[in-house]
């Protein structure tokens, strides 16, 4: 093998190639003021990877409805959109981030979208710990704007409070408003155990039940934490008290882990009694209803900020618009609704300021709507730019031979503090927090019944 000239050409070639790549990287970020660069950070891996297309679809459906964009492929939102303008600026989707629930990857993807690809506004992420990481990133990058996807960790807005981070959905605790009262009053529980995912959303979701159940006078005798994602739940369910030693279980195991965790329970203790279990939103969404519903008819669940099957005029109007662009997705699913709203809010704000993002996005932040008359009720942003919204506990029911879930109540305007139970000074939900204590919540005894999708005000 004759290699003489390569000895000298190889290093030279490598240096030239390196310089070329570096230069192309530098050129790639040159801004064009006629465009607004939007990034979407979802998850395509891990326990929630199945919701990837749905969330991108929700954002782009809102852009299609309110900003004149058009989906390239109605079956596959990640194929992108054409056209569309926000405040006169052409929408450019710079990229779709792919998270896996971990903050490390969320941060890496955020950096790629906002720094490498030059995003100006990001919508996402999906999951709790990711939200905390992105909110902290937002705080360190005050000239960009971040609109939450579905991440529902409490500290994301209650503790971090980045002025450029907006969350138009409730946190995990807000979504569970009503479950504690149902357990205590309707089901007669006095002593409950809770099994929850071992991360910020799991803690926050559990905190909603704990705060309300304990406010009524209930006790939590056992808290079990499971890593997420996971596949084998047998050792964790074994840590739960047996059904004859407890009034009921609150179940906060999410995504692809919900079904296997319930299966592990039935293998350990026999079939689940629907009166002895309440799930959070994971019981009903991400396709888990197909697996769980037949064995849990009558079981109650916390909501997702949406009113599945709600028959109010606003809900009907929203469904009509939301299904127009990507008809395969369920607009009543929180993984759709909670991504539609921030994108919709962005379109109104950008139109209001004529797309003027100069001066570090401050005009945009001021223009972001503080009240959004959304499909499932009014969304009001509090001082931390966190949604105060209506919540809808749900229940598995058998209707005409089919098993489905329906809204059984409406709790208007649930705020993140639970009437002062949570604040920036209280410890963030964790394995130990919140403590179980009797208290007074604003909506005690005020849950409005919902029958056949109509609130009985």
């Amino acid at each position, binding site marked *: 093998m004759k290699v003489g000239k390569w000895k000298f050409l190889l290093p030279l070639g490598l240096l030239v190639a390196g310089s070329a790549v570096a230069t192309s990287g530098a050129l790639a970020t040159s801004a064009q003021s006629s465009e607004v660069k939007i990034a979407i950070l979802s998850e395509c891996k891990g326990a929630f990877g199945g919701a990837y297309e749905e969330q991108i679809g929700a954002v782009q459906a809102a852009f299609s409805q309110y900003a004149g964009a058009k989906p390239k492929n109605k079956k596959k939102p990640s194929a992108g959109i054409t056209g569309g303008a926000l405040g006169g600026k052409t929408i450019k989707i710079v990229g779709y981030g792919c998270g896996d629930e971990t903050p490390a990857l969320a941060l890496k993807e955020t950096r790629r979208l906002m720094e490498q690809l030059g995003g100006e506004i990001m919508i996402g992420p999906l999951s709790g710990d990711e939200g905390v990481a992105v909110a*902290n990133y937002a705080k360190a990058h005050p000239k960009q704007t971040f609109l939450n996807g579905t991440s529902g960790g409490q500290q994301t807005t209650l503790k971090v409070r980045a002025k450029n981070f907006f969350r138009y959905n409730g946190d995990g605790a807000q979504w569970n408003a009503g479950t504690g009262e149902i357990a205590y009053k309707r089901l007669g529980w006095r002593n409950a155990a809770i099994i929850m995912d071992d991360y910020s959303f799991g803690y926050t979701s559990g905190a909603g039940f704990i705060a309300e159940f304990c406010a009524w006078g209930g006790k939590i005798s056992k808290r079990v934490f499971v890593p997420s994602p996971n596949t084998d739940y047998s050792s964790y369910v074994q840590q739960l008290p047996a059904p004859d030693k407890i009034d009921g279980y609150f179940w906060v195991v999410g995504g692809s882990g919900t079904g296997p965790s319930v299966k592990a329970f039935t293998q350990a203790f026999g079939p689940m009694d629907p009166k002895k279990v309440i799930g959070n939103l994971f019981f009903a969404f991400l396709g888990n209803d197909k697996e769980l519903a037949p064995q849990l008819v009558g079981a109650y669940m916390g909501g997702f900020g949406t009113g599945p099957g709600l028959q109010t005029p606003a809900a009907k109007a929203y469904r009509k618009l939301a299904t127009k662009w990507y008809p395969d997705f369920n607009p009543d699913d929180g993984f759709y609704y909670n991504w539609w709203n921030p994108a919709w809010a962005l379109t109104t704000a950008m139109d209001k300021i004529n797309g003027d993002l100069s001066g570090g996005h401050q005009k945009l932040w001021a223009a972001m709507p503080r009240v959004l008359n959304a499909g499932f009720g009014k969304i009001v942003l509090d001082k931390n730019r966190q949604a105060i919204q209506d919540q809808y506990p749900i229940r598995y029911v058998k209707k005409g031979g089919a098993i489905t879930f329906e809204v059984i109540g409406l709790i208007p305007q649930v705020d993140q503090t639970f009437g002062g139970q949570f604040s920036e000074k209280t410890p963030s939900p964790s394995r130990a927090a919140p403590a179980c204590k009797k208290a007074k919540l604003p909506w005690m005894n005020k849950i409005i019944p919902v029958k056949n999708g109509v609130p009985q005000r």
Partner: protein
Amino acid sequence: MTKGWTAKRIVERCVGVVVLVFVAIGPAALTDYWVSSILTQTFLLGIAAASLIFLSAYGGMISLAQTAIFGIAGFALANLVTTDATGGQNLGWNPWLGVAGAIVIATAIALVFGALASRSLGIYFLMITLALGVIGFYFFLQVDKLSGRAGIPTIRAHAPSIVGDTSAAPERLYYVALVLAFAVYVVIRYVVRTPFGIALQGIRDEPVRMASLGYNVPVHRMLAFGLAGFFASLGGVLYAWWNDLMDPAAIDLNAIVSLLVVAVIGGLGRIEGAWLGAFAFILINNYVRDIEVPVLGGSFPTVIGFIFLAIVLVSPDGLMGLWDRVWSGGRRRGDPPEVAVDVQRSAPEASPS
């Protein structure tokens, strides 16, 4: 053996100088993304990979525990210096004291790891260090007082003034990382020429003979592990500042394998390979992640997997090995299948010059 100033050495020195000049003026010519996310990350990941290559090339030990030590330094720093983070102890130490504390803690734990692993060889050493690496990940995942899955954010706000605000001025951390990377390189080159380094290479090649000559083989290995842990801890501290978040996913099994991939791509036989491998790995991760491989699908893991396979088959001693082969007329030094052992034996710096 004295090599003298051969043509290869001259070309290498020239390339080294050009690269150094290029990276020295880099921040003036490159975008912030390149300065921060590509090159700063290359320097700090290269430092971690250098700790692995140092043990491999001069000690005959391929350690999978370097990622854990890297992480221990980062988590220690995060716990020690933060004051208002949503996770960790928030002890609020002085930033420099925190850096010193993090490095001391990580190096001490590396010495303990070294003591545990130093009497084993080959696959057993690999398995012990893999176990230690995985323990590191689960420790920080499970012990929520020190991290938990959400990790510890806002570390950067408590960095020494020399690092400053890396969002507004990424070039400061860039230069800190560059200087440290260069220092690690120089120190390793120096150490392997000291009596300790020469004894270490003797132990790598003939441990029984070295023991019979009176050298304490386990102690030498443990000290080498401690020194490599010190290097890895520098990488961990830089990573904590750079990422502004320490969370367990940074040191999970994926990260453990990634560091090994970096070292193998760069070349397990030469220290320079650490930064070359890191640069290649980061570039691939950033720029070819959307390539769809026919039938198999796409994304970064598939692409890097194929590149890793190609490197192992074509040039088991990595990109640096490829470079060496160009200069040796295409001859491969050592037998390719025995990457771990033969590459180490073929390391050009293996014997003192």
